């Protein structure tokens, strides 16, 4: 296991400001989604990843354009960070044809194949085998591409994880398994679902290279992800990338979080907010901050307008796309 410290090797302030913008966009987007959901405008149910923005942004920034990802039920951030527009994601949440899955998917099934997003998966661990297979295809075709699966700590206990890790290492395919460890499997804490707290130990069993990094600061996340992705792309084999992070919200929007120790959430919000940390790191003035916040907030507001004005599918469109 290689532990990646925050290397000062060279992300420019400009690049970091881009990261901050992206992270703040995701934050404001998800806050808006919570608000619109509570207002009864959005069908289905939603999971937001507030607190985990540095993972989505840091990891996706380390990917190349031709790389592919699979996401999870907590997918808004991954999808936005991979380059899908807020309009297309918001329209999907409103069930519109302009949505990134054209109204067939919803929050838990955000796809954007053109941008290498092979889909968010509502079955925990469901996307890992296909990422292994996509990486196998890249190896077959000698293409310098990497396939990356996002998943949470809860997924490390399901068979898809173990079978995929084993096969990927056995066949030495260019896959990265990005474990976004937020310490909770829905309402079940790590202590009740896993006998270990250092998830890099899972890689040991498969002889797989692993990298661990804290997930609340985007720069080390980016560095660690770059190292993992480069490792896979070089043909040195798959990597388990463990990013320890915090979910600063409930499992789903509206979750009363009765399972959380009192005061924990407040403390984490005060000390572990990745956006606050990056803002401090960049030394943004209040004016700069307000300008940035105003820009992304407007972008999010516009996405809501776009979505509301979107096209409803015809009911019978439900019979399309069953077969190719």
């Amino acid at each position, binding site marked *: 296991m290689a532990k990646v410290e925050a290397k000062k090797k060279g992300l420019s302030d400009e690049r970091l400001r881009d990261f901050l913008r992206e992270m703040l966009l995701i934050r404001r987007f998800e806050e808006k989604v919570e608000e619109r959901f509570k207002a009864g405008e959005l069908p289905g149910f939603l999971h937001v990843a507030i607190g985990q923005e540095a993972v989505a942004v840091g990891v996706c920034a380390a990917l190349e354009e031709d790389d592919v990802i699979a996401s999870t039920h907590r997918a808004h951030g991954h999808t936005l960070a991979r380059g899908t527009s807020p309009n297309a994601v918001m329209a999907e949440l409103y069930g519109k044809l302009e949505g990134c899955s054209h109204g067939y998917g919803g929050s838990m099934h955000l*796809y954007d194949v053109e941008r290498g997003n092979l889909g968010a998966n509502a079955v925990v661990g469901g996307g890992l085998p296909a990422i292994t297979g996509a990486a196998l295809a890249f190896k077959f075709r000698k293409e310098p591409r990497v396939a990356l699966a996002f998943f949470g700590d809860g997924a490390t206990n399901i068979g898809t994880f173990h079978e995929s890790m084993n096969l990927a290492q056995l066949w030495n395919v260019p896959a990265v398994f990005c474990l976004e460890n937020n310490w909770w499997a829905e309402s079940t804490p790590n202590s009740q679902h896993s006998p270990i707290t250092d998830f890099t130990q899972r890689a040991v069993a498969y002889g797989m290279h692993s990298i661990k990094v804290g997930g609340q600061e985007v720069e080390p996340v980016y560095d660690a992800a770059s190292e993992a992705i480069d490792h896979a792309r070089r043909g040195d084999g798959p990597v388990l990338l463990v990013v320890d992070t915090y979910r600063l919200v409930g499992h789903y929007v509206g979750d009363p979080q009765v399972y959380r120790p009192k005061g924990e959430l407040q403390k984490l919000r005060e000390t572990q907010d990745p956006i606050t940390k990056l803002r401090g790191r960049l030394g943004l003035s209040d004016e700069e901050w307000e300008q940035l916040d105003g820009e992304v907030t407007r972008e999010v507001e516009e996405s809501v307008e776009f979505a509301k004005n979107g096209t409803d599918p015809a009911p019978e469109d439900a019979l399309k796309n069953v077969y190719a």
Partner: protein
Amino acid sequence: MPELTYREAVRDTLATAMRQDSDVFLMGEDIAEMGGSMGVTHGLVDEFGPERVRNTPISEIAIVGAGIGAAMQGMRPVVEIMYEDFLTLSTEQIVNQAAKHRYMSGGQLKVPLTIRTQGGAGWSPGAQHAQQLEAWFVHIPGLKVIFPSTPTDVRGMLWSAIYDDNPVIVFEHRLLYPVKEDVPEKLEPILFGEARVVREGEDVTVIATGPMVHRSLEAAEEAGRNGVSVEVIDPRSLQPLDEETLVTSVKKTNRCVVTHEAVTRMGFGAEVASVIQYQAFDWLDAPIERVGAKFAPLAFAPVMEQFLIPDSEDVLEGIYRTVGRKRNGD
């Protein structure tokens, strides 16, 4: 016309596809040097090498799931699940992933994956190596399901499966592997959704799948000797289903027997019976008979196993019930 066994016909299609198309490759347990537990892929690793004929760990989730991922990248993987009982292990990937990626993405993705598997009773493998589970998968929108019963059919339909842009499950049957037949010189694709009238007749239509096609032909010969003319139809592809050919036949004969080796209850035959009664209700002169396995897991002792699974005698009894005769022809 060359004579091929069912086993050789499957192998011939796999080899032909792999020769012409570098996107086709095989994954499965013991399929390389050993040639698969049924010997179907025997010799292919010698011609195509271990990269394209890939032995896998015992990981049915990953076998299917990796196939899905490679298929989404435009390859045409053919994965083998050694026994269809083990499909139960990969069912999440088949049902939630393979069948739904195209739909959930609003048409952005294709999953041209072929899943070959086999099963079938008649050799006392016990309760976990011979189930017939095809009906489970016919129930899932997004999947195609085929069950070829002859060398010619499996050769042409497996080809169509490999080149279909959707996930296709190919059910083979262990007892069919040695069945021999003259097959066309050149491999000819057989489209899905076209039933085959195996034997023409006037009095009763028997709709049969897999090994029951052959058992139904035996029953039809016997019935013929007793003055009952039987038409035997093999749907071949269960999804899509050629309803028209089935209904047209029953409108001619006015009687129908549906038979498969899977248990009768909630089996594929239940759907066929529903199709027939709805579309040919006014033509039916007798209740539709269903002939399948009795409702129990498959027993080990041969005498019990044989009691559970349907044979040609059971089909014959079904035929006679539709024409109001007892087994002795009275």
